[in-house]
């Protein structure tokens, strides 16, 4: 019996050594350790043994089983490892081959800038509101204190639908709508399409975009206006930007100013684009809301004051992206849009 067990062990270990794959290993396991396997057969014959022999043989049989199982598991894991390694090797790819691109669309640069501007002000506590593209002469001119004879009212400057209805020439009528609807205090910005009687050329378009801001509260001063514009310019173009408030004239603000900012090309050093001045001219117009405008909207200028500002979104988009022809903004060439 002892020899039989020894033989089984030697044969089994030998077979394991000879085996070359997992299937053969499995066959070996069945052959020796299976229900009808050789070791099992031997153990079944244990009943015939004497009381003394039984534990000895039993122990030996267990040792043989452990040895075979141990070896089987060892070789099995070797095979698995080898197989994995072979697979990894076989699966090698050319990682420099192009990726499978998914198409992502592009924002229009103008509308992207418009939204960025709105968001800057929204983060400063301004509500973003909108107004119609077609407006009344009252909201677009009269209520904004525009003189009755002002050339901007001419048919050669403004598109009219009727004598009293026009395509708004600026976003300022939104101010009138807001002041008539809301009770102060409030802070709003409004951006959108505006229209002027300009033929299309490199820098002009009969349709363009403005952003308008309005703050009305008690004790609002020109110092608040300066601070708000400064913050906005720094947020938009960077902390090193400087502003310059030049007195100017708009019918709807008093005092009025035009704002120059550090030249966006040279950041104020002076270059050919700013004619050596270091300033980018007339980026923004602003001022304290004219008392006539407040009165026209039912707000008492003795109690409330406010400021308003307006800027050209198209110009900022063009400066920001280095676009030199406004026509590109409205042509919608995909090769242009795909750059943004």
């Amino acid at each position, binding site marked *: 019996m002892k020899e039989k067990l020894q033989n089984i062990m030697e044969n089994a270990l030998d077979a394991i050594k000879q085996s070359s794959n997992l299937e053969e290993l499995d066959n070996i396991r069945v052959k020796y350790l299976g229900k009808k396997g050789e070791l099992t057969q031997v153990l079944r014959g244990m009943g015939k043994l004497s009381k003394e022999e039984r534990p000895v043989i039993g122990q030996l049989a267990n040792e043989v089983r452990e040895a075979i199982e141990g070896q089987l598991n060892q070789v099995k894991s070797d095979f698995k490892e080898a197989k994995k390694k072979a697979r990894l090797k076989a699966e090698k790819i050319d990682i420099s081959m192009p990726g499978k691109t998914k198409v992502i669309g592009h924002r229009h640069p103008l509308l992207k800038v418009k939204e960025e501007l709105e968001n800057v002000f929204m983060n400063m506590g301004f509500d973003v509101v909108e107004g119609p593209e077609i407006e009344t002469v009252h909201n677009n001119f009269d209520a904004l204190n525009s003189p009755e004879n002002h050339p901007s009212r001419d048919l050669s400057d403004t598109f009219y639908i009727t004598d009293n209805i026009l395509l708004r020439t600026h976003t300022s009528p939104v101010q009138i709508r807001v002041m008539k609807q809301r009770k102060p205090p409030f802070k709003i910005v409004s951006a959108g399409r505006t229209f002027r009687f300009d033929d299309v050329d490199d820098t002009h378009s009969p349709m363009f975009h403005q952003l308008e801001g309005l703050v009305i509260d008690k004790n609002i001063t020109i110092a608040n206006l300066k601070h708000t514009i400064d913050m906005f310019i720094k947020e938009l173009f960077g902390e090193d930007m400087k502003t310059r408030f030049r007195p100017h004239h708009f019918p709807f603000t008093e005092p009025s100013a035009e704002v120059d900012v550090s030249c966006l090309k040279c950041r104020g050093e002076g270059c050919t684009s700013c004619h050596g001045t270091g300033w980018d001219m007339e980026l923004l117009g602003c001022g304290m809301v004219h008392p006539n405008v407040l009165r026209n909207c039912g707000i008492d200028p003795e109690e409330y004051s406010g400021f308003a500002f307006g800027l050209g979104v198209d110009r900022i988009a063009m400066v920001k992206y280095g676009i030199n022809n406004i026509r590109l903004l409205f042509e919608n*060439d995909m090769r242009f849009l795909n750059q943004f």
Partner: protein
Amino acid sequence: MLIPVKWLKEYVNIDGIDTKELADRLTMSGSHVDSIEEIDKGVNNVVVGKIEKIVSHPNADKLVITTIDVGEEKLQIVTGATNINEGDYVPVALVGAKLPNGMKIKKSKLRGEPSFGMLCSAEELGIDEGLIIKELKNGIYILDKEYPLGQDIKEVMGLNSVVIDFEITPNRPDCLSIVGMARETAATLNRDLECPQIKIENEVDQIDQYVNGIEVKDEELCPRYYARVVKDIDVKPSPLWLRRKLAEAGVRPINNIVDITNYVMIELGQPLHAFDLENIKGKKVTVRRATGSEKIETLDDVERELNDSMLVIADNEKPIAVAGVMGGANSEVSEETKTILIESANFNGRSVRLTSRALGLRTDASSRYEKGLDSNLANEACNRVCQLIEEIGAGTVVAGNIDIYKSVAKEKVIDLRPFRVNNMLDIDLAADQMMETLNRLGLESKVNGENIEVTVPTFRQDVEQEADLIEEIGRIYGFDKIPPVPLVGTLTKGEKSTARRIEDNITDILVGLGLNEITTYSFVSPKVYDKVNLPKGSLKRQYVEIMNPLGEDFSVMRTTLVPNMLEVLTRNYKYDVDRAWAFEIGNIFRPTSVPVKSLPYENKTLCIGMYGKVDYFDIKGIVDSMLKRLGITNQEYLREENYVTFHPGRTANITKNNHVLGTIGEVHPDVLENYGMKERIYIAELDLEIIGILSNLERKYKELPKYPAISRDIALVLDKDILVKDIEKIIWDNGNKLVEGIELFDIYTGDQIPEGKKSVAYSITYRSLDKTLTDEEIAKVHDPIVKALKENLNAELRA
């Protein structure tokens, strides 16, 4: 407004301030400097010399030898000039001089005679040809009088000058003059202003001996007409100083009379006109509207047709000037002119502007009048002209004037509260400082209790109320000196409207799905409605029309975004772009009444347009994905066969809960042909207001399923025309709440499928929220579904 700095200096002392500082400070007080032109012709070492002696050259007939006194020494200079005489004062280029044409003067010998310099012509000194009097064009420039010998010729002839170009805002016509800008300068630099003293030395006769009266028939268009007469006129070129000043200010010199009227216009801001009195028929001037048939040849030799909206100056027979715009050739001052009538009038700004525009003729005069001038300036300016004519000896002033001036402009008085100034500007300025600033600006101020009483002169028509005075103080104080202060008060959180947030969401989703955002004009050509084949009675042809469009292409407001989209896609196709997927969010416009009486309705609209590697189901998938993200599901697609812009077999209206969201489909081949498009285009146009109503951006967590889902596949053979939507409705309706999802995974026609039929394969997912479903439980739902499909759609189960 071109301001020669030297001219400015005549009225305000700016010593110690260089041009750059002057320009910067005026810019910061509201007179924006557009540009600075420094004129330096490069004349060096040229001085005044006097010709002492001229003798002939021993070796040359065409040369002479001169002795020139240049103060410190006497020079021998050989010249070929023929227009010189002993005693003339001339420009002398010394040895070592440089001239604008690059010439350098050296000691030389001409035919054996040494020469120590050169006598100069005007041209050699770089003087613009326009400024040179005919007689002085050829030969040496003979100075007009005796100047100190040896003096630098640049000073004598004013060859160096600085001209500043200011941008004058339309509210400040008073600054369209040297005196006006001198006043600004005085206030900005806190210096004294010295206005020209107007005084006529000698007046003879009386004006009514020369003029049979002036009649103003339209006082609204001509608030004031002031005139004087000057006789014994000697029309000739103006002296150099006058021509030079005009030229620097951008006005071409013509003759002494015209030049003086222009000079005074630039100096004081009042346009003036001189008529040849001999050519005024009846010696009577009438200011009236033109008649429809009248014509006038203006000074620029163009014949112009007038109409009854235009104001003219007329004699007894005909118009002799277009009021405030340009004089007529028929009464022009010429060399024969002996007596002139000087007009210094005030015309209505709007009338001048409209006339100037209608005639296509904008002049220095009209651009001043159209901004509204001070009617109290007219007499002063007219007298100034008389004074200057007298000064240069060009005529004798006739005593008296004719002044038609009924409604006299009056000064306003405004109370200014100093605390309002300090509050609005956030500064701390004493009342007397405010008064000083206002006084420098000509706004006479005095203390009136707590307040300042300001008398506003008529030349400052823009100053109407306290706020205007606050601005005056603020800009002279300097906005740059006011430190920025943050807004205080209620902290508010900025918000966007829900509608805007939905738009922003849509933009993000569509960009994420591969579409490019576009933006197109709100106005289109009415022809686009033909191009997209809209029938005559279509509601989309009820458009809002622009009264004065830039051209037909921009003449009506769009009622749909589809034509713009087609335009953009086609343009890209023509640029050889192989794929264009795009969307636009914009307004369409519908009149609330025809004709338009009130503001039209503006409807936010989304248009998606695609060509290149797409079909109907791609665009539908994009719309569905987008709507799902907006919380809109279960929308229905109803076949639309009558929207002629679209393919009748490939178009649907998208609806939900009785709302029509919009239309989706393939563009009709006829329309594509109209656009010259060779590829199929797919378009969806959706109403963002309806989407706004239906959308729901709120999200609530729904518990994840605890029990597994089990799916069953079925393949059906049924009539080809049955819509999958009808199959799916039967599955859902019979699903007994256990159907979780339906997925169409195959549609097949062809082999093994009978003619007129199709095979449709679905995978149906079943799940219960309470337990794991058994085969029997699934069968209890699945079998009735199959049965219902058979009964309702005559569908057969395919093995």
